[in-house]
């Protein structure tokens, strides 16, 4: 087992962010009612350091960390890497760590679990005792859980799932949120608990260590508690819940325990969503009834503010979706050069680089990724050849606009699984999670005569090496700065 540098909790991560200039400590009191959300939103849009709020109105003793992983630099810090590491470097490291044997978590005694420093049960377990923010004006309620994960266990296999399912506070004891039927928890709850009319135990973890959050975003087939261990290079420390047999990270800031209730629905939403719109309708959604709240001394809640790019939902989901696709395509022997999902596309658009070794390879790629469990979360695949830099948006747009034939280069996939969050979908498609997908094939056909192939006209392609070197050597002498 290879140990990697990692932060065991949210507090160590805050210090790590500060030491790398990726944190702004806000000493002035801020209001949980829109002000904190507005600050985090502006931070995301301006790509600024994460705000660490020390005083929250009405909630003395509580603190908050906004936009904890909204930039690649903060993701690199979370992984113990150089904050200036490039996206390909972070990607390669992530794939290296998460390919191999899963690392089982370890269970610690509750006296060694800071998340048990305070326990509210019975009538005391009241959601309004926590500073759930009103994130955007017009939201359906206060979203206590925006950067968090929900723990649940499959009743048949015992498999554990950690997933980010947003949760709106309804009343003192009730939260509500969408659990889409094709999600891991949706399959568990609607496939196994609801038919037996049995409540499903859950635990919501807020303010976890950063790598547990990264794992909870990852659409990997490996259970997230083991996936976290792979990212850390050592087992993540868990502790038993107070009211059920689930386990949660011992160093989490806040844990909310309870049951997901079958055959009861409450209206949830609207909410400013990861697509950058308030799209999915207010409608009856899955109900969580709480039994206990446990938390650390001076707990620090974590806040993500979904909206126009870039927030951590877009960044991390794009990152991990793209890299799970990379693993899938590599496992099938497809000669790809890389996969990059653009966070600015709100994880709707993925770019796959390939060596076009045979005809219609782009279609094979699209069929594979659209046919996988990853597919409801994106709908555009752009396949480019190896002369396009998949990480360079300008290069990708150039390839899309010049190499993709407007008719035979575009292949439409109808009757796909979708989500209620797609802004382009009509209201009925949103209601029934129906989508559509499209492939943009930006490779030149292999049967074209070589002499007819267009030649890319760029500095690196159309000048002899010695001229390139001479120009680069003299660049500043010509009067250019960079």
């Amino acid at each position, binding site marked *: 087992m290879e140990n990697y540098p990692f932060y065991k909790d949210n507090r160590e991560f805050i210090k790590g962010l500060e030491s790398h200039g990726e944190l702004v400590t806000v000493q002035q009191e801020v209001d949980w009612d829109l002000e904190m959300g507005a600050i985090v939103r502006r931070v995301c849009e301006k790509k600024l350091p994460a705000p660490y709020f020390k005083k929250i109105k009405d*909630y003395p003793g509580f603190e908050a960390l906004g936009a904890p992983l909204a930039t690649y630099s903060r993701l690199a810090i979370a992984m113990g890497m150089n904050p200036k590491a490039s996206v390909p470097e972070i990607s390669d490291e992530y794939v290296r760590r998460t390919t191999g044997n899963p690392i089982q978590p370890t269970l610690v005694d509750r006296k060694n679990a800071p998340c048990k420093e305070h326990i509210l049960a019975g009538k005391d377990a009241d959601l309004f*005792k926590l500073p759930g923010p009103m994130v955007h004006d*017009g939201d359906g309620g206060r979203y206590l859980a925006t950067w968090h994960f929900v723990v649940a266990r499959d009743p048949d296999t015992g498999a554990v799932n950690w997933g980010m399912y947003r949760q709106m506070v309804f009343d003192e*004891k009730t939260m509500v949120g969408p659990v889409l039927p094709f999600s891991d928890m949706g399959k568990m709850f609607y496939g196994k608990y609801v038919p037996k009319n049995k409540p499903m135990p859950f635990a919501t973890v807020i303010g976890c260590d950063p790598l547990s959050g990264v794992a909870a975003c990852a659409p990997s087939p490996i259970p997230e508690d083991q996936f976290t261990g792979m990212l850390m290079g050592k087992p993540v420390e868990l502790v038993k819940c107070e009211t059920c047999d689930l386990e949660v990270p011992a160093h989490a800031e806040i844990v909310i325990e309870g049951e997901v209730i079958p055959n009861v629905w409450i209206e949830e939403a*609207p909410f400013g969503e990861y697509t950058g719109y*308030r799209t999915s309708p*207010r*409608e009856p959604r899955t109900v969580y009834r709480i039994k206990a709240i446990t938390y650390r001394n001076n707990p620090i809640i974590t806040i993500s503010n979904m909206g126009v790019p870039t927030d951590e939902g877009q960044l991390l989901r794009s990152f991990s979706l793209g890299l799970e696709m990379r693993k899938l395509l590599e496992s099938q022997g497809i000669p790809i050069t890389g996969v990059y999902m653009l966070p600015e596309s709100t994880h709707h658009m993925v770019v796959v680089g390939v060596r076009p070794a045979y005809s219609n390879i782009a279609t094979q790629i699209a069929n594979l990724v659209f046919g996988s469990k990853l597919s409801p979360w994106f709908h555009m695949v752009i396949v480019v050849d190896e002369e396009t830099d998949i990480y360079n948006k300008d290069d990708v747009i150039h390839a899309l606009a010049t190499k993709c034939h407007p008719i035979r280069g575009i292949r439409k996939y109808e009757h796909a699984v979708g989500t209620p969050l797609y802004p382009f979908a009509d209201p009925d498609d949103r209601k029934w999670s129906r989508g559509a997908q499209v492939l943009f094939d930006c490779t030149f056909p292999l049967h074209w005569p070589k002499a007819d192939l267009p030649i890319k006209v760029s500095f690196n392609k159309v000048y002899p090496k010695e001229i390139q070197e001479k120009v680069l050597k003299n660049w500043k002498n010509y009067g250019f700065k960079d």
Partner: protein
Amino acid sequence: MERKEYDTFILTDPGSIPEDQEVELIVRELTPPDRRYKYRSAYVSAMISKSESKYPDRLWVRLGRGQLQEKPWSIKILKELNKFT
């Protein structure tokens, strides 16, 4: 006594909402005595009117995507309904 304020989300045409008869709806409390409970939701049975002055408390109306309507209505809450027992 100062008027309490609530809001509600109307998912259909606001013009079709019946007035002056007992209706069931979800309201959010906007002016609770303890500010920590702001936006607490509840199913209630209530009388509502599009007139701002007819009933004791003010009711702000939002549409399905959160759009706040300019003029408030009024509401008289008859009882809170418990959906979980």
